[in-house]
C-alpha cells in the first residue's frame, strides 16, 4: 500500500533562514509526487510537482528514489510562507492522491 510520511507536524523558522519540509514515501513503483499548500482561510492548492522540476515561490523539491524522499526546500523563508504543507503521492495519472499528515510551517519575523 502507498504511504506518505511527513515526520514534522510543526516547523518554525525565522524569516530569511533556510526551510526544509521532509517527506518520505513508500511505494514499489514510480509514483508522481506533489506538494500542496493551504494558506490561512484559503483552499488547498497545488504548489509543485516533481515531473515539472519547477521552482514555485522560491520552493523546490527533488525526488530521491533511492531514499524514497521528496523534501521541500527554500533557501530564504518569508513570512508569507507560513501555511500547512502536504506532501502527496499518486501511483498513476488516473489514480487517487495519497496525502501525508501535513506540516504546519510558521515563519517568525
Amino acid at each position, binding site marked *: 500500500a502507498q504511504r*506518505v510520511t511527513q515526520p514534522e507536524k510543526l516547523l518554525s523558522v525565522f524569516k530569511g533562514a533556510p526551510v526544509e519540509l521532509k517527506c518520505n514515501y513508500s511505494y514499489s513503483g514510480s509514483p508522481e509526487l506533489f506538494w500542496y499548500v493551504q494558506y490561512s482561510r484559503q*483552499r488547498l492548492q497545488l504548489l509543485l510537482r516533481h515531473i515539472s522540476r519547477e521552482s514555485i515561490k522560491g520552493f523546490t523539491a527533488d525526488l530521491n528514489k533511492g531514499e524514497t524522499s521528496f523534501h521541500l526546500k527554500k533557501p530564504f523563508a518569508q513570512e508569507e510562507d507560513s501555511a500547512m504543507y502536504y506532501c502527496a503521492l499518486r501511483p498513476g*495519472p*488516473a489514480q*487517487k*492522491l495519497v496525502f501525508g499528515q*501535513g506540516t504546519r510551517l510558521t515563519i517568525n519575523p
Partner: protein
Amino acid sequence: EAGVAQSPRYKIIEKRQSVAFWCNPISGHATLYWYQQILGQGPKLLIQFQNNGVVDDSQLPKDRFSAERLKGVDSTLKIQPAKLEDSAVYLCASSLDIGRDRQQFFGPGTRLTVL
C-alpha cells in the same frame, strides 16, 4: 474561471442524524473527488467519479456514506446516520481528464461537527 463550489460551509448535527453535502466542480472537469480530512490528518479519498461513474470508492464506509453524480456534473455526499467520528472537513475536488496533468482543484470544504 470559477472554482469548485461546495455547500454548506459548516454543519452541526447530532449523532444518528443525516446530513448531505453538495459540490459543483469546475465546468468541463470530468473527474470529481470527495475527500475526508479529520483534524490533524491529511485528506483521505472517499470516492472518485469519472463523469457519472464511480472509479474508486474503496475507502467509502458504505454502510453509512453514499455519493452520487447523476448527470456527470454536480455531486452530493450523504451520511446516514452520522457518528461522532465523522466530524471532519469534507473536501470536493475536480480535474480535467486529459493526459498526465489531471491537476486537482479543491473546493473550500464543508466542516461537519457531530455532537
